[in-house]
Structures are given as structure tokens and as C-alpha cells.
């Protein structure tokens, strides 16, 4: 269900309006009611809705006439007729004249749900919003995957999330690649007032400037070569939900000006259009870049920065919160075990040691991939050092962070030994040292063969 969808119920009987409005509200829609045709038309001028539920029998302007007027002003509008037993003939007539469906009151609860699903599906298709629908479906799957926060720093992040989620203040999430910025953005969304609206994400680093601009703002027909059809942008799709601007540091300063205006006025125009479109969403941005530094270099606008950075959520790299590693490893193990149906019980001490002494330049995402690979290649019930040998690939340890030289040496030596199945000569060769040096290190670091 997408609460970006706005519904108007038009019926002269107040209790019908009330009952329908209550029903739709519980399903997360935005609903308005009108007691007559003229009132509905007047409201439409101020704020058009996506779907109208119209009673056929109303004093003054009846449902059929209202249908014609609505279609005239807004040809792509969905109108559903409400009839009473005995006026089905009129409902059929209404369908011929462009109503998309009808309901015969009182209706079965299931009928109403099904009808709304049909309307949303056909609407999404029409708007070429299939991508959005898929994204919504995927979001439903992944949101509750769980958020692991063992370390004190992540606990702090979590309590910030809890505090800020219910407000609608803009949030800026900063941190290296793979630390969980998008997951945090999702989590804020699901705990917010907008949780029933869409979560619309856009990766600003993945598109060229012109594409990004039309992706964000949408465009009218003929706005540029290739714009054969008008298209809704992400700003519109995010209405009543959350807009997630990933890699916000990649947005050009020119586009920052337009975005700033859209954020301040809560309205904007599509590319090539002059009609102001209203939109209301919560903004969450993320970046791995140092925005204050970019501001100094005139690569980022200060006013835009203040606008998006009302609340900052800094996310530490995994190597600075190694306490999270075991919990995250268990979390991903459980997930992949479920996916593959393999029976796995956990990690050997040695394997955990390896995970704890690695520097994780790709952060949580890298850990996730490592566990996934380990589950795939594992033959036994436990994930052991053997399954993690690829952790030792040269060049992987380029960001050593807070590890001491000794820690790095231990993990590197251990990994080489595992990789060579404790064949001292081969491991020594791989490490570029001689056997006696390696033996000394094994002794000094109390390493034992598993």
C-alpha cells in the first residue's frame, strides 16, 4: 500500500463518508471526504486526489455527472462508483463512461481490499512506477532483517535513531562504504511517522548529472530529446514518505540550489514544466565524504549542507567497533543458513579470531560477503579457518585502522599458516621469511596448530 495515494470519498451520507474514510486511514491512505459533487470539484482544484469514490445517487449533481467533470479536468483519474442494490445498471453505465470499477454497498470487506489492490497495481503500471513497486516489495522483505548493535558506539547510534525517527527532521548519515548507512536510513523510516509511506532511495553517485536531475525532479513530455512521455521524479514518489539521497556529496552545486528550493518550499517543477508540484517527505542523506572539506573547496554549498544536516548520525568503521563482529557474523550466518538450508552451528574459536583481527576495509558489507562465501564452501557443521582463507588476499588489508602492528602481524601469519595447512616451509615462503623466523614468531605468539 502506498500512502502517496490520495483518496477522496464523495457521498451525501455522512456516516458512509466517515466509515470509508476510517477504513482507508487504517490502511495508511490519505483520505478526504466531500458531501456533494460541487464540493468535490472545488477541493479538486485546490488539491487533486488520485482516486475518487463517488456515490451514484446524490441530490443535485449526481455521481455520473461528477464522473464526467472529474474526467474532464483530470483524464487519468481513477473513479470508483458506489451504488446501492438496484442501481447496478447505472454503475455499468458509469464504467462505460470511464469509471474504473464500482462497489455495491454494503460490500464485503474483502471486496474493498481487493479493489484497492487492483487500483494501485494498475495505477503503478500506468505511471511506469514498476521500479518503485518492486522497491516497495523488496523493502517489505528486508526492513526487519534486523539491525545488529553490540558495541557501545552502535548502541549510541541506535538511541539516536530512536530519538530522531519520530520527528521529521532531516538526517545526515556519514560513514565509510558498507558501514550500514542505507540500513540505518531504512530503520529510521520504519520507525517514523512516514513508515506507511514509500521509502524512495536514489544513489546520486550512480547517475550522470542530467539523468540524476530528471530522476529526482521528473520531466514533462518533450522536456529534452528522448523525453517522449512525462515522468514522475523521486521527489514526487517520496510524497508522504522518506527520500533517501545516497552519496549526497556527488550532487552538483547547481542541482543543490534546485533541491534546496524544493526542500524549503515543499514544491518544485518537473524539468520542462511550469506547474508547481507539492510534495512532502522526510529527507535522509548519506555520504562517505567529508562535506565540510568539500564546502571549503567550493564543491558543496554551505546552505544546502545546513539544510540536510539537522541531525548527524556518524557511523564508525567496523575496525573501530570489532565487538560487533561476532554478533554480525552470527546474524549473517543465520541468514545464509536459512537461505541455503545448510545445517551450520557457528564459528570455531580460530575462525572468530581471524574475523576479529581483520581490518574490514569494506566494513559490514565485506563481512557479509565473507560469511556468505564461507557458508557456501563449508563442508562441516562449523565455519573454521579453512573457510576463511580468502580473507588473506593480498591488498585486502589496505586500511589497517586502529590495529597495532603486532595484531596485524599475528593475523597475517596465522592466515598464511592456515592457507598452507600449517606447512611451515610453504607458509614461510608465502610470507617472504625463512623457516626459523616463522618458527620464532609461532612460538612468540603462542600459535598452535588446530
Amino acid at each position, binding site marked *: *500500500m502506498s500512502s502517496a495515494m490520495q483518496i477522496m470519498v464523495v457521498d451525501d*451520507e455522512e*456516516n*458512509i463518508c*466517515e*466509515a*470509508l474514510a*476510517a*477504513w482507508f*486511514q*487504517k*490502511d*495508511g491512505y490519505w483520505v478526504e471526504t466531500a458531501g456533494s459533487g460541487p464540493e468535490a470539484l472545488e477541493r479538486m482544484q485546490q488539491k487533486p486526489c488520485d482516486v475518487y469514490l463517488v456515490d451514484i445517487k446524490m441530490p443535485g449533481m449526481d455521481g455520473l455527472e461528477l464522473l464526467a467533470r472529474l474526467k474532464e479536468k483530470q483524464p487519468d483519474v481513477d473513479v470508483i462508483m458506489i451504488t446501492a442494490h438496484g442501481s447496478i445498471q447505472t454503475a455499468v453505465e458509469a464504467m462505460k463512461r470511464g469509471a474504473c470499477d464500482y462497489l455495491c*454497498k*454494503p*460490500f*464485503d*470487506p*474483502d471486496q*474493498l*481490499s481487493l479493489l484497492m489492490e487492483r487500483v494501485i497495481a494498475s495505477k503503478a503500471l500506468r505511471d511506469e512506477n514498476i521500479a518503485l513497486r518492486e522497491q516497495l516489495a523488496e523493502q*517489505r522483505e528486508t*526492513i*526487519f532483517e534486523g*539491525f545488529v548493535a553490540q558495541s557501545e558506539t552502535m*548502541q549510541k547510534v*541506535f*538511541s539516536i535513531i*530512536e530519538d530522531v525517527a*519520530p520527528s521529521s527532521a532531516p538526517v545526515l548519515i556519514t560513514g565509510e562504504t558498507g558501514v550500514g548507512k542505507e540500513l540505518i536510513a531504512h530503520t529510521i523510516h*520504519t*520507525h517514523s511517522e512516514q*513508515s*506507511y509511506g514509500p521509502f524512495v532511495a536514489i544513489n546520486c553517485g550512480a547517475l550522470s548529472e542530467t539523468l540524476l536531475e530528471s530522476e529526482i525532479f521528473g520531466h514533462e513530455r518533450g522536456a529534452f530529446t528522448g523525453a517522449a512521455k512525462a515522468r514522475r521524479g523521486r521527489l514526487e514518489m517520496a510524497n508522504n514518505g522518506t527520500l533517501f539521497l545516497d552519496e549526497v556529496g556527488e550532487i552538483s552545486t547547481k542541482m543543490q540550489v534546485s533541491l534546496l528550493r524544493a526542500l524549503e518550499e515543499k514544491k518544485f517543477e518537473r524539468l520542462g514544466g511550469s506547474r508547481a508540484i507539492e510534495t512532502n517527505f522526510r529527507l535522509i542523506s548519506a555520504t562517505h565524504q567529508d562535506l565540510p572539506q568539500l564546502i571549503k573547496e567550493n564543491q558543496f554549498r554551505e546552505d544546502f549542507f545546513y539544510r540536510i544536516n539537522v541531525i548527524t548520525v556518524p557511523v564508525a568503521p567496523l575496525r573501530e567497533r570489532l565487538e560487533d563482529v561476532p554478533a554480525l557474523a552470527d546474524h549473517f550466518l543465520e541468514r545464509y543458513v536459512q537461505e541455503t538450508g545448510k545445517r551450520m552451528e557457528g564459528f570455531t574459536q580460530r575462525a572468530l579470531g581471524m574475523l576479529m583481527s581483520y581490518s574490514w576495509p569494506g566494513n559490514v558489507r565485506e563481512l557479509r560477503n565473507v560469511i556468505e562465501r564461507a557458508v557456501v564452501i563449508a563442508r562441516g557443521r562449523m565455519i573454521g579457518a579453512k573457510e576463511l582463507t580468502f580473507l588473506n588476499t593480498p591488498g585486502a588489508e589496505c586500511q589497517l585502522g586502529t590495529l597495532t602492528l603486532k595484531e596485524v602481524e599475528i593475523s597475517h601469519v596465522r592466515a598464511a599458516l592456515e592457507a598452507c595447512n600449517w606447512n611451515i616451509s610453504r607458509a614461510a615462503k608465502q610470507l617472504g621469511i625463512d623457516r626459523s623466523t616463522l618458527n620464532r614468531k609461532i612460538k612468540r605468539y603462542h600459535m598452535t596448530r588446530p
Partner: protein
Amino acid sequence: MHTNQSKQTDKALLDLILLGHVNETAVSIVAANLQAIMGLNTDIRPVLDKPDYAYVPGRNQFDAAKIIKTLCSITDGAPLKLGLIESDLCSPILTFVYGESQLGGKAALVSLHRLSAEDPAVTYQRIAKISLHEVGHLLGIKHCWKTTCLMKHSSDLEPLDSLSLYFCSACEYEIKRHLETLINRDI
């Protein structure tokens, strides 16, 4: 997720109001579940008369909206009211409803009429699920699309039976949040 322990209060936050005779086991099961699953202190109030004012003659049902309005007008007792009735309910637009509730409001209503199963345990579970769902609405929670969450809308018994007696973590979080507001407002 860290959550603040909600403030303890002995005062009931919800009154169970029986409209005519209602199966006693069902009543105590509803009260127990509200208490255990939602952390909602619940009082069982003396039985009221059957709501003849809400009877819809042609349909041999009772209008849920009218009963809810009456429950709302009760000024004493707990801030939230949940009516329980054995008769069948309808609304001006729907042929029947298992229950009805004011979103973020004061009163909700559940009918036992369509919930009976061969196995009484299943019957009681259905009654508990619908009650928790409607009280969820009372606390301002909208429908949830998580397939196993109690706030998922079930328009039929089959999907209702496939739910477990749990709210998903997001709904649970929201329920806690709304309850805390309610408790703070009430003391």
C-alpha cells in the same frame, strides 16, 4: 533495540465492556492477552444491556459505529474502552465486521459472532487476535503489511488463523511509544 521501561501504573488503561451476555472464558482471555502482549492494564466492567439502539432490523445485525459512539460517551473509568458482544456487527459500508475501532481514539468493539471454530482454543485465539488488533488501532497503529503481524488486516478467518499472537517489531515499538504517551497523559 533499547527501550525505556514503561512507567509502572496500577490504574487500568482499558475497560472491557460487555454488551449483553458474553462468554466468560473469552472475556478473561482477552483481558489476559491485552495485559500480557500489549502491557495494557485492563479492568472488566459490569455487563451492560444489549444495545438495541444499534440494531439494524433488515440485516439482523448491530451497527458497530453506533455502539462505539455510545462507548465513547462513557466518561468514567479507564481512558480506553473495548466493547465485547456476541451478536453480529456491521457497518454502513460493510456486510459484516469482526471488530471496529477508532484510529487513535477512545473506543473499539469486537464481536464473537463469526469467530467460532470447532476447536475452542482456535475460537479464543481468534477473539484475542481481533481484540489486540482493534486495540492496536485505538493506540493509533495503522495496518501493517508484515504477513505475521497482528496489525495485518485480515478480512477472512483463514488469514487470521495464520497470524501468530505477536506484533512485529515496528508495531510493537509504536505500541510502546503510544502507550507511554497515554500513561504520561493520564497521570
